[in-house]
């Protein structure tokens, strides 16, 4: 499959980000950028600070030092609501869905920021609430069709196998129509077939909607196949940054992954 998208200008830039929990330094002076429409991977061994990095980008954690520049606006720290309203959506490493709610309702929560109707209107299904819900439902159905989860529309999320839950979480993120999508280990715990499906969905999202994607992944095959550029973290420091092919032969990266004799 040939990609027709064109990678554009830098949309997100992090500079000298440092994050510490008490004495534990999770991130130290991390800088990198993400360009429009690209698929950017963050890789590294366990505890390297990958998830912390995503959490800093969308405001779950506030870094002690450094700046985040999103769409040209520099900030010391994001906050989550602001991140979401600016078009940043994400999925989590340990699935964060509402287990007792149906797939449809879970994905509808991804549209929350687009609803203007107030509490009373929504509760009584009057005024703006009705039309808004119809319009948002139409968008959600588009996402359901896109990710091929029609058959579980009414199923409570808790009853679904892990691989499908991951897909539902992606659906919820997509329902927000993000311009920047952060995926935290979208393929962890999946079998080969599920991984292939997920890769195809990620590529399709990127191609069809032009969404910029930052993903954390352990499966090197996946990273090398679908990503444009890769950041490598180890013990909270950046040890590599570049196209997958360049990193394949980077000694620091090989050492971090395979370990070195002491």
């Amino acid at each position, binding site marked *: *499959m040939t990609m*027709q998208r064109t990678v554009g200008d830098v949309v997100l830039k992090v500079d000298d980000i440092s994050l510490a929990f008490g004495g534990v330094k999770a991130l130290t002076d991390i800088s990198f950028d993400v360009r429009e429409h690209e698929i950017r991977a963050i890789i590294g061994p366990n505890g390297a600070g990958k998830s912390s990095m995503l959490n800093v980008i969308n405001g779950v954690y506030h870094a002690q030092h450094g700046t985040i520049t999103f769409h040209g606006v520099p900030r010391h720290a994001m906050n989550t609501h602001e991140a979401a309203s600016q078009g940043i959506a994400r999925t989590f490493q340990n699935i964060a869905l509402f287990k007792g709610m149906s797939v449809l309702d879970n994905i509808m929560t991804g549209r929350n920021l687009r609803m203007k109707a107030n509490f009373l209107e929504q509760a009584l299904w009057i005024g703006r609430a009705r039309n808004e819900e119809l319009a948002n439902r139409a968008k959600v*159905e*588009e996402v359901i069709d*896109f990710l091929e989860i*029609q*058959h579980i529309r009414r199923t409570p999320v808790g009853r679904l196998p892990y691989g499908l839950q991951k897909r539902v979480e992606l659906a919820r993120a997509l329902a927000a129509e993000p311009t920047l999508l952060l995926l935290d280990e979208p393929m962890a715990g999946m079998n080969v077939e599920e991984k292939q499906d997920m890769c*195809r969905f990620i590529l*399709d999202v990127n191609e069809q909607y032009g969404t910029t994607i930052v993903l954390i992944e352990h499966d090197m095959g996946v990273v090398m196949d679908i990503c444009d550029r890769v950041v490598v973290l180890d013990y909270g420091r950046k040890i590599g940054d570049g196209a997958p092919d360049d990193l394949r032969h980077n000694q620091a990266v090989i050492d971090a992954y395979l370990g070195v004799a002491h």
Partner: protein
Amino acid sequence: METSPGTFPGRMFAHARTRPQHPATREKDLGIWQTWTWSEVAAEVRAIACGLAALGFKRGMHLAIIGDNRPRLYWSITAAQCLGGVPVPMYQDAPAAEFAYVLNDAEVAYAIVEDQEQVDKLMEARPQVPTLAHIIYDDPRGLRSYEGVVDYDSLVVLGREYDVAHPDFFDAQLTAIDPGDVAIMLYTSGTTGKPKGVRQSHAAFIAAALGSAEFDHLTPEDSVLSYLPMAWVGDHLFSYAQWVVAGFTINCPESGDTVMTDLREIGPTYYFAPPRVFENLLTQLTIRMEDASAPKRWLYQRCMAVARRCGAEILDGRPVSMANRAAYWLGNVLIYAPLRNVLGMSRVRVAYTAGAAIGPDLFRFYRSIGINLKQFYGSTETCAYVCLQPDSAVKLDTVGLPAPAVEVKIAGDGEVIVRGPMLLTEYYRRPDATAESIDADGYFHTGDAGYFDADGQLKIIDRAKDVGKLNDGSLYAPNYIENKLKFFAHIKEAVAFGNARDHVCAFINIDMGSVGDWAERRNLAYSGYTDLAAKPEVLQLVRDCVEQVNAELARDPALSGSQVHRFLVLHKELDPDDDELTRTRKVRRGYIAEKYAVLVDALFAGRATQHIETEVKFEDGRRGMVAADLPIETARTFAPAAARAAA
């Protein structure tokens, strides 16, 4: 515009004139059922046909149609017929290599397919298929950057322009079609050898559709769910030929996985499924009932006992005592009606099953809860139209009376032979096969062994070539034994061996859903099919099923010799991708016996275990190995007299 009522396009354009606003096709798209009326469908068909003509499609050419049941694919069938072309529906789940065979055999130059998956497979097959020039796709997802393929919308736009530029073209094409022209080419499923292209004329399929539509009083108000493979003759009769002839509404489900939900939403009045679908439904139902709370289970069992006692009799209108009627009425309120609703069969007036023998118990279950399930008999070569069961005379073990206009005879060797307007024109490019199957008197030899019972209903025993004898001379009909085994929810597939042997042995495939659930409830951990199938507890479970079948067989004097002495549970599921099943999921007995010859030998040699390694093909074309040491189990058999005493 004058069109002949003897052709499918003629009939479709007649509907567009006489009932333009009547719904013809529905499809669930983005969660909402979309409807197209007959006039809209006719306009679309005209545009597709003109579009194909603009691309150079001409009379006599073949149009491959591949995909799930999509309205546009059904319309493409008529569009090809309008131009005097021959549509060739193909099994959508077949891998590229199988595509290549059919595409080459039919010299296909034009293909209309559903989506990227099918386009990719055609691209893969293309180097081996030099004739394939035009690929048209319905769903554009993921296909935007493909070159050398045409999307459906562009085809229709092209067609409309062509129609404007050549205003007389389309009507001239329509008048040129003759009822004797070939309307469709369906490939046989190929239980033996390579598939053959069966060519059926407009006249043959319309005769079959008319006959069956009148037999069951189908009207334009009826509604069916189209969810079976379009390449199967059953779907072509029920979702295409009868649709165009009777003018009812076909409903295309959202996806293959949503069929159950869609069935409930549509509530078809006319329903058709092969036994396997009814089996799966009952399996799911049984699983869910076992998970239900104790009071619900109790109520279900009590009501089902009543249904077994008198349900089928009430449906047939036979005399039933007042007490039973009252109990059944209560059962209907509490269980049967809600059950029919869950199954999506609340409005079903007529339901049919065919394609394989149905287990008597399975058949009785559906009739006992008030679903008018009937059987019919037919094959690709006979437009699936030979015998039908009338409402008043439904039997468990027959396939019905000869259909209107069809002559059925039993040949000297016990083979069922048939004659009538619904016979095939020919096998494509196989005059030898055509001559072999149709005799000098015009009878088609079905290859099935059967006989007429006292009421004149046809009873099919098995494929004629499969029926054999055990060494002691008693009758051996493998299908019969396998079907008895397959009725158990835990057994998905069975293959019996016994011809010219001392006794019968069998391979078993467990049903992953049912046995998996059973294992879960017993806290039995397993990693996958191979692991689960080898658990001693599972083997015991299967042994119980086999022994029940043996007890039943022992009661039938003619078949008591066919009891299953030894069996094994296979380490992998039989799969069409590994050539073990046909695309319509019939076991390919000969191939399996050859492939697993070591296992067959081990069964009959009395060995206790046997090591086996098998190559499997995954859906994406990769290969892998499955290896296992299979334990071989011995089942208890019953002396005919002892079983009678026990019963």
